[in-house]
């Protein structure tokens, strides 16, 4: 009798403890997290030049013109001009094959966008970010190597600037003012080196007419930020410079801008340093097949200053009682109305949108017609079934921009001029004239009829990588209304479900529980009966 009782107690304990043990082991296994690989790379930004440029006699002269500095540079750095002149930084276009279009030449030189619509024709202002000296109009000689501006990328003194409104030229004695003085060429040329963050940032941080307007993940805060903003560029972290990732060979800088590039080459990837299995955790590492690193590691962008998310040109041109343009701010101090540009919506700490992207893109080309609304300024290719595509975080900039209602084409505007009366919209607020002159400069047909059309442009996010503690948790995506709610061409565990399967599953669980309870009761009854 006693023996039977202890047997029953043992059976009861085993039946309780065994499932408990299985449960605990399962939880332990599920909670396992691998230790991420430690990256150990020599940073290029830590490179110290072995040459003291101030000792060179040729750099001790009183330079009168920046072209003279270029000539001095090239007298030692022979052949570098050919390298520079082969780059997109110089040509502002490159030949690339776009699926369905063949080989086309695309770049800032000829593409339209939904920020300031396009650079060509607004040279005085936009070409300030060209690495040449004085691309003021069509007469700029791209074959003249002395037009290369070596200093804008290699200055280490932070005193060399291209002057606003001068098409990429620094101030001259005639144009100098309180904001822009004539650079001390001798001093600057004697202090040159590998590009620092601000050499790149002077253009790449301020695209679209202000800090962080365009990218959302590239802005002046990266010059000196905390790890919360960017783990790579953090002043209290590795303090990496742009060139540490954007490695360069023969002046060809790796890592193209996805919004103006089409082909999937010359890119840079996280796995260059971090490998394709950096987590040391099989489940997380498996995500690499279909999820870009950026998706989990950049949970939000514009972490320091706001970025523009919406730009409505149709409201531009209002003036005050005196016919002058004016501005209004939003609650955070960002302009949300400018007479010269229209209405904007800014935001900070923005959650990205998510799209499939295989590294290739299409673009709205000047000869394209408007067939769908909103007009897609660029199209990111990729879908679940594409083995090369991954889920990417993307900033989408939406807006309304001017288009030719007759030809159904987006209009290249003449926005900038030095003074009133030259037909530039920013001076004269005349849509008719700005559209006519802009199209004329770009050799594009214009019927004279215009309206405004919705458009959107896609900017894959790459910078502002968060510390590992702030990366996305599983449930941010693996839930019904999670971040990937918009990507519906595949089955995502935790998000997608089938009612029949769910009911069948719950039914089986319910039946199992009934079985367990019935079995338990049977045992109890049997125990007392046998007693």
């Amino acid at each position, binding site marked *: 009798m006693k023996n039977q009782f202890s047997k029953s107690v043992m059976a009861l304990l085993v039946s309780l403890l065994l499932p408990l043990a299985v449960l605990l082991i399962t939880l332990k296994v599920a909670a396992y997290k691998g230790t991420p690989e430690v990256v150990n790379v020599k940073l290029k930004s830590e490179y110290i030049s072995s040459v003291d440029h101030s000792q060179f006699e040729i750099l001790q002269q009183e330079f009168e013109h920046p072209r003279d500095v270029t000539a001095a540079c090239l007298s030692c750095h022979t052949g570098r001009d050919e390298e520079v002149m082969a780059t997109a930084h110089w040509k502002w276009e490159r030949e690339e094959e776009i699926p369905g279009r063949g080989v086309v030449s695309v770049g800032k030189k000829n593409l339209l966008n939904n920020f300031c619509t396009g650079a060509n024709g607004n040279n005085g202002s936009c070409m300030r970010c060209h690495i040449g000296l004085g691309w003021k109009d069509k007469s700029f000689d791209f074959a003249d190597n002395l037009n290369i501006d070596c200093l804008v990328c290699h200055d280490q003194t932070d005193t060399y600037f291209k002057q606003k409104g001068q098409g990429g030229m620094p101030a001259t004695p005639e144009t100098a003012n309180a904001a822009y003085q004539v650079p001390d060429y001798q001093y600057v040329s004697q202090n040159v080196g590998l590009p620092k963050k601000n050499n790149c940032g002077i253009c790449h941080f301020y695209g679209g007419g202000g800090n962080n307007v365009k990218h959302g993940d590239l802005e002046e805060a990266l010059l000196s930020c905390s790890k919360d903003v960017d783990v790579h560029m953090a002043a209290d972290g590795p303090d990496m410079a742009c060139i540490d990732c954007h490695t360069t060979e023969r002046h060809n800088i790796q890592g193209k801008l996805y919004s103006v590039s089409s082909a999937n080459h010359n890119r840079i990837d996280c796995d260059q340093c971090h490998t394709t299995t950096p987590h040391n955790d099989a489940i997380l590492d498996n995500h690499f097949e279909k999820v870009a690193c950026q998706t989990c590691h950049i949970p939000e962008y514009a972490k320091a200053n706001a970025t523009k998310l919406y730009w409505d040109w149709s409201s531009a041109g209002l003036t005050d009682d005196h016919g002058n343009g004016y501005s209004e701010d939003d609650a955070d101090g960002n302009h949300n109305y400018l007479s010269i540009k229209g209405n904007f919506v800014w935001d900070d700490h923005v959650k990205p949108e998510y799209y499939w992207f295989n590294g290739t893109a299409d673009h709205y080309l000047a000869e394209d017609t408007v067939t769908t609304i909103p007009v897609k300024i660029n199209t990111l290719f990729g879908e679940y079934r594409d083995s090369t595509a991954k889920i990417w975080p993307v900033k989408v900039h*939406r807006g309304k921009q001017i288009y030719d209602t007759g030809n159904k084409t987006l209009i290249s505007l003449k926005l900038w001029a030095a003074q009133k009366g030259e037909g530039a919209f920013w001076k004269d607020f005349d849509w008719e004239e700005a559209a006519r002159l802009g199209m004329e400069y770009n050799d594009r047909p214009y019927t004279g009829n215009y309206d405004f059309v919705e458009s959107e442009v896609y900017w894959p996010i790459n910078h502002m990588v968060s510390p590992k503690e702030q990366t996305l948790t599983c449930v941010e995506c693996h839930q019904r209304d999670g971040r990937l709610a918009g990507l519906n061409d595949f089955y995502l565990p935790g998000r997608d479900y089938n009612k029949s399967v769910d009911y069948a599953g719950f039914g089986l669980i319910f039946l199992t529980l009934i079985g367990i309870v019935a079995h338990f009761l049977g045992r109890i009854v049997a125990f007392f009966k046998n007693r």
Partner: protein
Amino acid sequence: MKKLIIYTACLFGLLSCQTQPSNLTVDLMVENASKIITTVSPTDLMKIMESEEIFNVIDVRQNTEHYYGFIPGAVNIPRGSIEFNIATENFWETEGLYMPTKEETLILYCKKGKRSALAAQTLMQMGFKKVLVLDGGWKNWELSFPDFCDKNLEMLAGGPAKHDDGGGC
């Protein structure tokens, strides 16, 4: 047996005396509030605004944020004073509106949805039956309906002109 009853009673006593956690972070507070509130998308809010339903849209941001841009028709009650003003006749009279009953729909928004979640939790504790929070707040509205936004230009310019109606000399 007696001891067992006493111990059990003590255990229940301890459990029932548990106080609210006192060291919550703001993120946890918002997370807790989010579990009990109901959110509404900008599109659904627009449908409510176009319907016959009696509702009040309440902007719980500070007035210095409100003036720069708000949903047309929204009443500005900063979160710091919402408990005091929501059921005060004088406040609603000043706004030129009837004081909402506890059965009416209240739609709250702030910049991004965190402050309004906390404010909604408070209003629900006060007995308001249908409190909704605009998902993503003002920023989401601004991006969803950029042509349906208002500004208080008068207040941004320093407020209404001050008149000296004192008369005399």
